[in-house]
Protein backbone atom coordinates (compact mmCIF):
# COMPACT_ATOMS: atom_id res chain seq x y z
CA UNK A 1 0.00 0.00 0.00
CA UNK A 2 1.25 3.46 -0.92
CA UNK A 3 -0.57 4.78 2.11
CA UNK A 4 -3.06 3.48 4.66
CA UNK A 5 -4.83 4.48 7.84
CA UNK A 6 -6.44 2.68 10.77
CA UNK A 7 -8.42 3.99 13.73
CA UNK A 8 -10.00 2.75 16.95
CA UNK A 9 -12.66 4.13 19.26
CA UNK A 10 -11.92 1.95 22.27
CA UNK A 11 -12.13 -1.73 23.13
CA UNK A 12 -14.34 -3.47 25.66
CA UNK A 13 -16.80 -6.22 26.40
CA UNK A 14 -19.60 -4.90 24.21
CA UNK A 15 -22.04 -7.54 22.99
CA UNK A 16 -24.02 -7.36 19.77
CA UNK A 17 -27.22 -8.21 21.69
CA UNK A 18 -26.83 -5.06 23.78
CA UNK A 19 -26.18 -2.81 20.79
CA UNK A 20 -29.29 -1.68 18.93
CA UNK A 21 -28.98 -1.38 15.13
CA UNK A 22 -29.40 2.39 15.53
CA UNK A 23 -26.55 2.55 18.02
CA UNK A 24 -24.30 0.47 15.78
CA UNK A 25 -25.16 2.70 12.85
CA UNK A 26 -24.30 5.85 14.81
CA UNK A 27 -20.89 4.48 15.79
CA UNK A 28 -20.10 3.26 12.30
CA UNK A 29 -21.15 6.56 10.76
CA UNK A 30 -18.83 8.53 13.02
CA UNK A 31 -15.95 6.08 12.48
CA UNK A 32 -16.38 6.44 8.72
CA UNK A 33 -16.54 10.22 8.92
CA UNK A 34 -13.32 10.26 10.95
CA UNK A 35 -11.30 7.88 8.82
CA UNK A 36 -12.34 9.59 5.59
CA UNK A 37 -10.81 12.83 6.92
CA UNK A 38 -7.46 11.12 7.37
CA UNK A 39 -7.77 9.18 4.13
CA UNK A 40 -8.35 12.38 2.15
CA UNK A 41 -5.30 14.03 3.71
CA UNK A 42 -3.14 11.02 2.82
CA UNK A 43 -4.58 10.69 -0.70
CA UNK A 44 -3.77 14.34 -1.36
CA UNK A 45 -0.16 13.81 -0.30
CA UNK A 46 -0.50 15.17 3.23
CA UNK A 47 1.53 13.96 6.17
CA UNK A 48 0.66 11.04 8.40
CA UNK A 49 0.90 13.40 11.38
CA UNK A 50 -1.80 15.65 9.92
CA UNK A 51 -3.96 12.63 9.11
CA UNK A 52 -3.64 11.29 12.65
CA UNK A 53 -4.37 14.64 14.29
CA UNK A 54 -7.34 15.62 12.14
CA UNK A 55 -8.88 12.14 12.28
CA UNK A 56 -8.67 12.07 16.06
CA UNK A 57 -10.23 15.55 16.21
CA UNK A 58 -13.44 14.12 14.71
CA UNK A 59 -13.57 11.39 17.34
CA UNK A 60 -12.72 13.85 20.14
CA UNK A 61 -15.59 16.12 19.10
CA UNK A 62 -18.10 13.26 19.23
CA UNK A 63 -19.87 12.36 22.51
CA UNK A 64 -19.82 8.69 21.45
CA UNK A 65 -16.22 8.00 22.40
CA UNK A 66 -14.27 8.31 25.63
CA UNK A 67 -12.09 11.23 24.53
CA UNK A 68 -12.60 14.98 24.23
CA UNK A 69 -16.34 15.78 24.34
CA UNK A 70 -17.32 12.23 25.35
CA UNK A 71 -14.79 11.80 28.17
CA UNK A 72 -15.80 9.87 31.26
CA UNK A 73 -16.00 11.48 34.70
CA UNK A 74 -13.48 11.28 37.50
CA UNK A 75 -14.50 10.54 41.08
CA UNK A 76 -14.73 14.30 41.63
CA UNK A 77 -17.14 14.69 38.72
CA UNK A 78 -14.60 16.36 36.45
CA UNK A 79 -13.26 15.34 33.04
CA UNK A 80 -9.50 14.87 32.70
CA UNK A 81 -7.95 14.22 29.31
CA UNK A 82 -4.73 12.50 28.28
CA UNK A 83 -3.24 12.34 24.78
CA UNK A 84 -0.05 11.56 22.89
CA UNK A 85 1.35 11.59 19.38
CA UNK A 86 4.55 10.28 17.81
CA UNK A 87 6.34 10.95 14.54
CA UNK A 88 7.90 7.77 13.13
CA UNK A 89 10.36 9.68 10.96
CA UNK A 90 12.08 11.62 13.73
CA UNK A 91 11.00 9.59 16.79
CA UNK A 92 9.84 12.91 18.19
CA UNK A 93 6.87 12.64 20.54
CA UNK A 94 4.49 14.77 22.57
CA UNK A 95 2.00 14.03 25.31
CA UNK A 96 -0.36 15.78 27.71
CA UNK A 97 -2.01 14.49 30.85
CA UNK A 98 -4.80 15.55 33.17
CA UNK A 99 -6.04 18.60 31.27
CA UNK A 100 -9.60 19.85 31.88
CA UNK A 101 -10.02 22.81 29.53
CA UNK A 102 -8.29 21.90 26.26
CA UNK A 103 -10.97 21.10 23.67
CA UNK A 104 -8.78 18.82 21.55
CA UNK A 105 -6.01 17.20 23.62
CA UNK A 106 -4.35 15.59 20.58
CA UNK A 107 -3.65 19.11 19.27
CA UNK A 108 -1.96 19.90 22.57
CA UNK A 109 0.14 16.72 22.36
CA UNK A 110 1.31 17.75 18.89
CA UNK A 111 2.05 21.31 20.03
CA UNK A 112 4.14 19.92 22.90
CA UNK A 113 6.02 17.73 20.41
CA UNK A 114 6.68 20.48 17.90
CA UNK A 115 6.81 23.69 19.94
CA UNK A 116 8.36 22.74 23.26
CA UNK A 117 11.62 21.04 24.21
CA UNK A 118 9.65 18.53 26.30
CA UNK A 119 7.79 15.28 25.70
CA UNK A 120 5.04 15.45 28.32
CA UNK A 121 3.27 18.29 30.13
CA UNK A 122 0.57 17.79 32.76
CA UNK A 123 -2.46 19.49 34.31
CA UNK A 124 -2.40 23.28 34.85
CA UNK A 125 0.98 23.74 33.24
CA UNK A 126 -0.14 21.92 30.13
CA UNK A 127 -3.27 24.09 30.00
CA UNK A 128 -1.16 27.26 30.27
CA UNK A 129 1.02 26.02 27.42
CA UNK A 130 -2.09 25.26 25.34
CA UNK A 131 -3.35 28.79 25.88
CA UNK A 132 0.04 30.23 24.93
CA UNK A 133 -0.07 28.20 21.71
CA UNK A 134 -3.50 29.55 20.83
CA UNK A 135 -5.30 26.21 21.10
CA UNK A 136 -9.04 26.23 21.71
CA UNK A 137 -9.82 26.44 25.43
CA UNK A 138 -13.32 25.60 26.68
CA UNK A 139 -15.20 25.76 29.94
CA UNK A 140 -15.02 22.33 31.65
CA UNK A 141 -18.82 22.24 31.34
CA UNK A 142 -18.33 21.62 27.60
CA UNK A 143 -17.34 18.03 28.41
CA UNK A 144 -20.49 17.22 30.40
CA UNK A 145 -22.59 14.41 28.94
CA UNK A 146 -25.57 12.81 30.65
CA UNK A 147 -24.50 9.30 29.64
CA UNK A 148 -21.08 9.59 31.27
CA UNK A 149 -22.49 11.17 34.43
CA UNK A 150 -24.91 8.28 34.82
CA UNK A 151 -22.02 5.86 34.34
CA UNK A 152 -20.16 7.56 37.18
CA UNK A 153 -23.23 7.38 39.41
CA UNK A 154 -23.65 3.67 38.64
CA UNK A 155 -20.01 3.01 39.39
CA UNK A 156 -20.16 4.85 42.70
CA UNK A 157 -23.35 3.01 43.63
CA UNK A 158 -21.63 -0.31 42.90
CA UNK A 159 -18.71 0.70 45.11
CA UNK A 160 -21.09 1.24 48.01
CA UNK A 161 -22.67 -2.19 47.60
CA UNK A 162 -19.63 -3.88 49.14
CA UNK A 163 -19.42 -6.24 46.20
CA UNK A 164 -15.90 -7.14 45.19
CA UNK A 165 -14.71 -5.57 41.94
CA UNK A 166 -13.84 -8.99 40.58
CA UNK A 167 -17.49 -9.99 40.36
CA UNK A 168 -19.07 -6.62 39.69
CA UNK A 169 -19.64 -6.00 36.01
CA UNK A 170 -20.04 -2.23 36.35
CA UNK A 171 -16.87 -1.78 38.35
CA UNK A 172 -14.93 -4.12 36.11
CA UNK A 173 -16.08 -2.30 32.99
CA UNK A 174 -15.24 1.03 34.57
CA UNK A 175 -11.57 0.17 34.31
CA UNK A 176 -11.62 0.46 30.56
CA UNK A 177 -10.59 3.48 28.62
Amino acid sequence: NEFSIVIHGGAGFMKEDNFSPEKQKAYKKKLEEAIRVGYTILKDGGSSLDAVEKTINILEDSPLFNAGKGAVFTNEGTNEHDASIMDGKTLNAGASAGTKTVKNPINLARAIMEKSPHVMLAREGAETFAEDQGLTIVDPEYFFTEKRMKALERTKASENKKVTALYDATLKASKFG
Partner: protein
Amino acid sequence: TVGCAALDKHGNLAAGTSTGGMTNKRWGRIGDSPIIGAGTYANNNTCAVSSTGWGEYFIRGMVAYDISALMAYKNLSLKEAAHEVIQNKLPSIDEGQGNGGIIAVDKNGNIAMEFNTSGMFRATMNDKGELYIGIFK
Protein backbone atom coordinates in the same frame (compact mmCIF):
# COMPACT_ATOMS: atom_id res chain seq x y z
CA THR B 1 -10.13 6.04 24.14
CA VAL B 2 -9.61 6.86 20.48
CA GLY B 3 -6.55 6.45 18.32
CA CYS B 4 -5.17 6.56 14.83
CA ALA B 5 -2.11 5.23 13.00
CA ALA B 6 -1.19 6.18 9.45
CA LEU B 7 1.39 5.73 6.70
CA ASP B 8 1.69 8.58 4.20
CA LYS B 9 2.93 8.63 0.60
CA HIS B 10 6.36 9.77 1.78
CA GLY B 11 6.84 6.60 3.81
CA ASN B 12 6.36 8.32 7.15
CA LEU B 13 4.45 6.64 9.97
CA ALA B 14 2.63 8.41 12.79
CA ALA B 15 0.36 7.41 15.64
CA GLY B 16 -1.79 9.25 18.16
CA THR B 17 -4.08 8.44 21.08
CA SER B 18 -6.56 10.54 23.06
CA THR B 19 -8.66 9.55 26.06
CA GLY B 20 -10.77 10.57 29.01
CA GLY B 21 -9.25 7.77 31.07
CA MET B 22 -11.26 5.53 33.37
CA THR B 23 -14.58 6.30 35.03
CA ASN B 24 -14.27 7.22 38.72
CA LYS B 25 -10.50 7.70 38.53
CA ARG B 26 -8.86 9.47 41.48
CA TRP B 27 -5.57 10.88 42.65
CA GLY B 28 -4.56 12.18 39.24
CA ARG B 29 -4.51 8.66 37.81
CA ILE B 30 -3.01 8.45 34.34
CA GLY B 31 -3.28 5.43 32.04
CA ASP B 32 -1.24 4.34 29.05
CA SER B 33 -2.63 6.78 26.48
CA PRO B 34 -0.13 9.59 27.09
CA ILE B 35 2.78 7.22 27.76
CA ILE B 36 5.04 6.95 24.73
CA GLY B 37 5.84 3.29 24.18
CA ALA B 38 2.74 2.09 26.06
CA GLY B 39 -0.25 3.83 24.50
CA THR B 40 1.43 5.27 21.43
CA TYR B 41 4.54 4.50 19.40
CA ALA B 42 5.76 5.14 15.87
CA ASN B 43 9.00 4.27 14.10
CA ASN B 44 9.50 4.42 10.34
CA ASN B 45 11.61 1.25 10.48
CA THR B 46 8.81 -0.84 11.95
CA CYS B 47 5.28 0.40 12.66
CA ALA B 48 2.93 2.93 14.25
CA VAL B 49 0.67 1.79 17.11
CA SER B 50 -2.18 3.18 19.21
CA SER B 51 -3.47 1.21 22.22
CA THR B 52 -6.76 1.03 24.08
CA GLY B 53 -7.55 -0.93 27.19
CA TRP B 54 -6.77 -1.29 30.84
CA GLY B 55 -4.00 1.28 31.12
CA GLU B 56 -2.12 -0.08 34.08
CA TYR B 57 -1.43 -3.33 32.23
CA PHE B 58 -0.57 -1.60 28.98
CA ILE B 59 1.99 0.53 30.81
CA ARG B 60 3.58 -2.49 32.49
CA GLY B 61 3.57 -4.34 29.17
CA MET B 62 5.00 -1.34 27.25
CA VAL B 63 2.61 -2.64 24.61
CA ALA B 64 3.09 -0.27 21.69
CA TYR B 65 6.88 -0.35 21.82
CA ASP B 66 6.91 -4.09 22.41
CA ILE B 67 5.16 -4.70 19.09
CA SER B 68 7.73 -2.53 17.33
CA ALA B 69 10.57 -4.29 19.17
CA LEU B 70 9.37 -7.75 18.14
CA MET B 71 9.40 -6.60 14.53
CA ALA B 72 12.84 -5.02 14.85
CA TYR B 73 14.63 -7.72 16.84
CA LYS B 74 12.73 -10.89 15.91
CA ASN B 75 11.71 -9.98 12.37
CA LEU B 76 8.09 -10.77 13.13
CA SER B 77 5.43 -9.37 10.82
CA LEU B 78 3.14 -6.69 12.24
CA LYS B 79 0.29 -9.17 12.59
CA GLU B 80 2.50 -11.72 14.34
CA ALA B 81 3.94 -9.14 16.73
CA ALA B 82 0.55 -7.65 17.58
CA HIS B 83 -0.94 -11.10 18.17
CA GLU B 84 1.94 -12.15 20.40
CA VAL B 85 1.69 -9.05 22.60
CA ILE B 86 -2.10 -8.75 22.88
CA GLN B 87 -3.11 -12.43 22.98
CA ASN B 88 -0.16 -14.05 24.71
CA LYS B 89 1.87 -11.54 26.70
CA LEU B 90 -0.77 -9.16 28.06
CA PRO B 91 -3.18 -11.65 29.64
CA SER B 92 -0.31 -13.42 31.33
CA ILE B 93 0.80 -10.30 33.15
CA ASP B 94 -1.73 -10.80 35.91
CA GLU B 95 -4.13 -13.67 35.39
CA GLY B 96 -5.92 -12.37 32.36
CA GLN B 97 -6.51 -8.81 33.45
CA GLY B 98 -4.64 -7.10 30.63
CA ASN B 99 -7.69 -6.46 28.49
CA GLY B 100 -7.84 -4.25 25.44
CA GLY B 101 -6.35 -3.96 22.00
CA ILE B 102 -4.27 -2.06 19.49
CA ILE B 103 -4.47 -0.76 15.98
CA ALA B 104 -1.28 -0.47 13.95
CA VAL B 105 0.16 0.05 10.49
CA ASP B 106 3.62 -1.00 9.32
CA LYS B 107 6.06 0.67 6.94
CA ASN B 108 4.50 -1.21 4.01
CA GLY B 109 0.98 -0.14 4.82
CA ASN B 110 -0.09 -3.47 6.31
CA ILE B 111 -2.64 -3.11 9.07
CA ALA B 112 -3.28 -4.94 12.34
CA MET B 113 -6.29 -4.63 14.63
CA GLU B 114 -5.71 -6.99 17.54
CA PHE B 115 -7.85 -7.16 20.69
CA ASN B 116 -8.56 -9.69 23.42
CA THR B 117 -12.00 -8.33 24.34
CA SER B 118 -15.32 -9.05 22.64
CA GLY B 119 -15.24 -5.83 20.68
CA MET B 120 -13.28 -2.82 19.53
CA PHE B 121 -14.60 0.13 17.52
CA ARG B 122 -12.32 0.17 14.49
CA ALA B 123 -11.96 1.17 10.86
CA THR B 124 -9.37 1.01 8.10
CA MET B 125 -8.83 2.50 4.65
CA ASN B 126 -6.10 1.70 2.12
CA ASP B 127 -4.76 3.50 -0.92
CA LYS B 128 -7.49 1.94 -3.08
CA GLY B 129 -10.12 3.61 -0.96
CA GLU B 130 -11.33 0.28 0.44
CA LEU B 131 -13.15 0.86 3.73
CA TYR B 132 -13.63 -1.61 6.59
CA ILE B 133 -15.56 -0.81 9.76
CA GLY B 134 -16.02 -3.22 12.68
CA ILE B 135 -17.28 -3.26 16.25
CA PHE B 136 -17.49 -6.86 17.41
CA LYS B 137 -15.04 -9.73 17.15
